[in-house]
């Protein structure tokens, strides 16, 4: 297609070019999906008789991006913002966990189970100990990484050695973990009043609670720094190392990778192991940071929401930072939005679901746009040919 023709066409063609532009397609398609989602959810809110504008405003206000109508004493925009960061940290780590497996062609659906297991082990061994903060906090992270990594490697081993599909095995392991930890918590660590596990010592907690900033009580999370560092590290591994290249090779064509001498089995196990490590980190930042207790038998929905986050971020670690901001705004702002607008707070999950639905069709939108452009170019070519033929005919008549 020449430059001149690509400039022509109405707004539809402009949209199509916007979506297929090779340099920007990684960003434009997700943005297109987000806009579609906002339109659909605005329609849903209108049908329910609520104002979409107010709803979207309260989503942002609930996360400290905008001013709420009124604040309780000791809280303000900045404390809302820190609580947003506090829940965003495990979300980003969980999304990175999914991305790591997915780039190698593996679906880690067991993130919530791996999170629960590492959170449980870290709670029992470090959270209930008397260790001082300087020792306890690093230990919590190390325990999270080791336990998550082992849980992930187990799944990878089952896949490689026994050909068990990782989706089925992770789900089975999820339920086993949730029942076994529930049994242990109910037996030994239950708090009879809150019906969840006893709270951990504040020295082991990855969130510094009630820090005074500008007159507001803020919960400052360590996790967010770890999460951003992890995103950068994962990006580096994928783009700059041989190991990362081999992982992606296995993910895009297993047979080709095998033929060029990549040890596919080893790569699959290590991909699942690292995915599990990241999930383990997500687990400790969630259970020993965002909350400081574990509700027995409950698998957090974050394990699945992180798949939405990863998909929306085009399975790139840097994209995941932005998409986890967006998804967390919906998830975390839901309760404030619910009280401000009066819609059940489950609407946040519905919006996430719709977003996920559109993201899954991202490739289809791109192809549709490309086909439309090709058709447009063909028509132009036809028109040119016809004009040339007409001109030739005319020339012939003149002679």
């Amino acid at each position: 297609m020449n430059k001149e023709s690509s400039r022509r066409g109405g707004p539809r063609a402009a949209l199509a070019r916007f979506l297929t532009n090779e340099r920007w397609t990684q960003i434009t398609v997700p943005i297109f999906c987000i806009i579609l989602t906002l339109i659909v959810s605005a329609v849903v809110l209108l049908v329910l008789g609520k104002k979409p504008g107010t709803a979207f405003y309260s989503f942002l206000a609930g996360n400290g991006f905008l001013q709420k109508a009124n604040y309780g004493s000791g809280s303000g925009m900045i404390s809302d913002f820190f609580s947003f960061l506090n829940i965003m940290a495990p979300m980003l780590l969980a999304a990175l966990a999914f991305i790591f497996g997915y780039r190698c062609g593996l679906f880690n659906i067991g993130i919530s189970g791996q999170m629960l297991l590492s959170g449980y082990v870290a709670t029992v061994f470090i959270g209930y100990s008397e260790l001082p903060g300087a020792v306890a906090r690093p230990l919590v992270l190390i325990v999270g990484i080791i336990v998550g990594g082992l849980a992930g490697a187990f799944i990878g081993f089952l896949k490689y050695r026994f050909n068990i599909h990782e989706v089925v095995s992770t789900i089975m392991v999820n339920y086993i973990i949730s029942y076994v930890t529930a049994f242990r918590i109910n037996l030994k660590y239950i708090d009879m009043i809150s019906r969840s596990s006893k709270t951990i010592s504040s020295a082991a907690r990855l969130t510094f609670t009630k820090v005074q900033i500008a007159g507001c009580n803020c919960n400052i999370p360590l996790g967010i720094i770890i999460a951003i560092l992890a995103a950068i590290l994962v990006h580096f591994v994928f783009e700059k190392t041989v190991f990362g290249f081999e992982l992606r090779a296995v993910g895009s064509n297993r047979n080709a990778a095998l033929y060029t001498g990549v040890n596919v089995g080893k790569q699959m196990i290590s991909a699942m192991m690292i995915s599990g490590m990241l999930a383990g980190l997500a687990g400790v930042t969630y259970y020993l940071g965002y909350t400081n207790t574990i509700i027995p038998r409950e698998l957090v929905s974050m394990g699945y929401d992180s798949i939405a986050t990863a998909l929306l971020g085009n399975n790139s670690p840097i994209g995941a930072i932005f998409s986890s901001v967006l998804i967390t705004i919906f998830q975390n702002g839901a309760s404030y939005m619910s009280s401000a607008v009066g819609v059940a707070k489950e609407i946040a999950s519905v919006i996430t679901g719709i977003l996920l639905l559109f993201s899954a069709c991202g490739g289809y939108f791109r192809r549709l746009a490309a086909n439309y452009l090709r058709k447009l170019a063909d028509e132009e070519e036809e028109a040119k040919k016809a004009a040339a033929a007409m001109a030739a005919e005319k020339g012939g008549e003149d002679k």
Partner: protein
Amino acid sequence: MTYINSLITDGLAFALPLFIMAVGGIYSEKSGVTNLAVEGFQGFGAFIGALIATILSLKSGLGGQTIIYIAIAAAFVGGAVYAMLHALLCIYFDADQVISGVVINILGLALTTFLTSQINGVLFGNASNKFVLETSYRFSVPGLSSIPIIGAIFTKVYPFEILILVLGVFFWYLMYKTRYGMRLRACGENPQAVDAAGGNVYKIRFISVMISGGLSGIGGMCIAYSLLVQYSPNIYLGYGYLAIAAMIFGNWNIIPTFFVCIFFGLAKAGGNQLCLVMQLSSLYTNLFMIIPYVLTLVMMIFFSKRNHPPKAAGQPYDKGQR
């Protein structure tokens, strides 16, 4: 003795809904569409069924047992309609089929939870997240039920168990003995051949996914009636995934899958009964709940190597490919 009897009775009441969900999964995968969405289908189907049942018991004078049959039919329709979304994504939009399955599950849970509280708000004025259902009646076959041990099969039978058996036979016949069934299976192995023979691959796959959703919906509704006696987000207990595991064990064939489901049902009921026999406190039930999942993993270790899933499952059909 009573332990063994209730083991068989409870085991069957759990195994048969699982079986019909697994048949749903087989229909979709045999036609070449990977189906991880059984969990979402069964939940959505059960939601529609429970909604219809609640409205009917509120507004119409129908008897409770008639409502159960209407609810099961509604669950079939609801599951089938919801499955169209998966079919659209996988067949026409070429989305990754595993991702589409996960999306359907997440969206199903979110939508039904949201709608349940909204509709409860409208119908009853309080936004509770569950529909309370009537308990289904159960019957015992006179004579047969008094035979020792085997008699337990005929004791306290839910009417839906008979329905599921009838449906199971019908859908087995449809898949293995009819022209449509042969084409459906061919779509999962070699869709190009079906196209060459004049079949419409897209249409066959679309219908199969809808059947899959409908059957899963029936399974969900039966579990709502037997296990929970209500509809709530608790319906997403992971039994859809268990059905998928059963399907993989059964090597994507209906008859072996039936026996696997019976085995799962007995294992689950056995765990509960074992807890009772050993007279352990209710704390230990959590520990016995893991039995079906551990058994699944262990059995998969032995059987996964010999599996051969439908060849074309997971790939969108491309007419230009050969």
